[in-house]
């Protein structure tokens, strides 16, 4: 009796599994995989829907865009290890360069293929503090004061964190009598105040916003706006430092993959769509600074004017910055080990 019953149960379970696992959803349509960094989830939800409409209107084809998000460096590593990305939209050019250095997935001159260094939107680094700014934080130097708990992700795995670090460094260099030594000292003192080093920007946001840890969160501007939008302006406020860095998150078609998957035309159009007025509007609506001057003027109130330096002028490009600051045994390792 029991044997018969368990056999029937088994058959039932098997049928249930089959039902669950072979449901529809595999009919032919173009799919793109966009491998992106951590805080762009909301941005690409918006953008993908708009692009799918655009592509449908233009070609009559239905395109479905799949997303993968994580720390920028980790995501690049996954693509190198075989994650089949048609396009990558990462936090910084160095991580996209990695696709060229390892496995030659893209050509070396990828950054010249699209306008504005292949970065259709920009952002910068700001501070998010608790409402009323109880610790009286004004500028980068305040982050190094004793007793300030700073939240920032790990520069080894997170692109945003590298921008944070370099912005602090650039600020110190910019001070009267600023030098590499004084910059190193300031950055070392800031990281001494870091209590939690998450692997990605979104993890840090959660630490600061949800778990309530820390006095100040060094954050992407877009991420800071989003935290306020999602969780209330009555809890946090954004502070703009006297100097910050122009963050250019680049986008690229992964040549080896689109040729194999025969998706080059739709992948290329996907990235070009960023440079249209609609694309630029979507960026601005999601708190990324648009490149298009007309759209930028429209959203001028949202984005405070801040003195911005670039990675090329202050640090001589990503290659050099990476070697000097973030490589194994480089400055970040030296100051964080202490």
């Amino acid at each position: 009796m029991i044997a018969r019953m368990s056999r029937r149960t088994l058959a039932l379970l098997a049928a249930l599994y089959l039902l669950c696992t072979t449901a529809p959803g595999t009919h032919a349509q173009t799919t793109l995989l966009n491998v992106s960094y951590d805080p762009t989830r909301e941005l690409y939800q918006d953008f993908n829907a708009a692009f799918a409409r655009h592509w449908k209107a233009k070609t009559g084809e239905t395109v479905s865009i799949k997303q993968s998000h994580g720390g920028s460096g980790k995501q690049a590593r996954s693509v190198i290890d075989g994650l089949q990305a048609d396009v990558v939209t990462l936090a910084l050019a160095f991580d996209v360069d990695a696709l060229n250095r390892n496995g030659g997935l893209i050509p070396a001159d990828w950054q010249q293929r699209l306008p504005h260094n292949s970065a259709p939107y920009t952002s910068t680094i700001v501070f998010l503090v608790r409402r009323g700014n109880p610790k009286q934080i004004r500028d980068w130097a305040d982050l190094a004061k004793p007793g300030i708990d700073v939240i920032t992700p790990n520069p080894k795995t997170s692109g945003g964190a590298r921008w944070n670090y370099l912005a602090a460094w650039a600020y110190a260099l910019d001070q009267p009598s600023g030098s590499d030594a004084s910059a190193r000292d300031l950055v070392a003192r800031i990281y001494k105040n870091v209590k939690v080093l998450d692997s990605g920007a979104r993890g840090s946001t959660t630490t600061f916003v949800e778990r309530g840890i820390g006095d100040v969160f060094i954050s992407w501007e877009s991420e800071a706006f989003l935290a306020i939008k999602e969780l209330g302006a009555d809890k946090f406020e954004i502070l703009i430092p006297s100097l910050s860095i122009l963050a250019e998150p680049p986008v690229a078609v992964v040549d080896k993959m689109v040729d194999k998957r025969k998706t080059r035309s739709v992948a290329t159009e996907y990235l070009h769509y960023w440079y249209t007025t609609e694309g630029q509007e979507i960026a601005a609506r999601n708190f990324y600074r648009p490149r298009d001057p007309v759209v930028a003027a429209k959203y001028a109130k949202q984005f405070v004017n801040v003195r911005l330096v670039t990675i090329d002028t202050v640090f001589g490009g990503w290659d050099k910055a990476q070697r000097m600051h973030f490589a194994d045994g480089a400055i970040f390792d030296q100051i964080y080990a202490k």
Partner: protein
Amino acid sequence: MAGAATALGGLRGAARFEANTATRDPAWVKGLVLSLSLGFFLLFLLLPLIAVFVEALRRGWSVYLAALIEPDAVSAIRLTLLTAAIAVPLNLVFGIAAAWTITKFDFRGKQMLITFIDLPFSVSPVIAGLIYVLVFGAQGWFGPWLGEHGIKIIFAVPGIVLATVFVTFPFVARELIPLMQAQGRDEEEAALVLGASGWQMFRKITLPNIKWALLYGVILCNARAMGEFGAVSVVSGHIRGVTNTMPLHVEILYNEYQFAAAFAVASLLALLALVTLAVKTYVEWRASQTAQPGEVP
């Protein structure tokens, strides 16, 4: 299984100790230990479990249901079930084969085999995932060959299944080995002497003997297969709607400020765990009945 039987034996033992003044613990000791363990249970096990359901239902049933029938969630649930549906039967076969080899044969390196079966328990799941990236990744040993032939292993369903099989491997074998060792080979030998074929012996003698232990192992294996996070996270690639399992989906939702949805999916996972526990308890109870026929009505 031996564990289940001793637990019951232990209960009877406790009653005997209580009845005897010489062996009875002072009341305050009993009270202290009892409140300590109950307090711990409430604070660290029951409270979080309740919190999951409270958070999940905070925005009402409609939000809860919407979170579960949303396409990415459905795909995560489906992938989790598919993974378990492949990993559990595979480990059922591997587990029986390994336990059979170890308990019925003598050979050199037997101790080593036993140690290796435990390897997935002692290795961190992250390493388990990385092993497969190193072996099957595009830059790994077999990566280029697989790429040329258009075979996807990591960042696709096969990789997730492989990682899950790895971390759940010991459950079935670990349950069977002590039991089969205790039972010895006598009954099987008798069956063979009486003219049974190998298959008949397995079906009529071995299987009924190990039935409950086997089921117990399968349940544990299934629970872990559905809940595994670390190893799967490394090989998944986190493509939503394609390679996210339920635990990964929970993390993604949480990171997207969709707290109610995250807890809704988490509550479904917790429910699966509770069902597993209920089945496990039933199996233990059945096992203790078969272990002591006649003693319990």
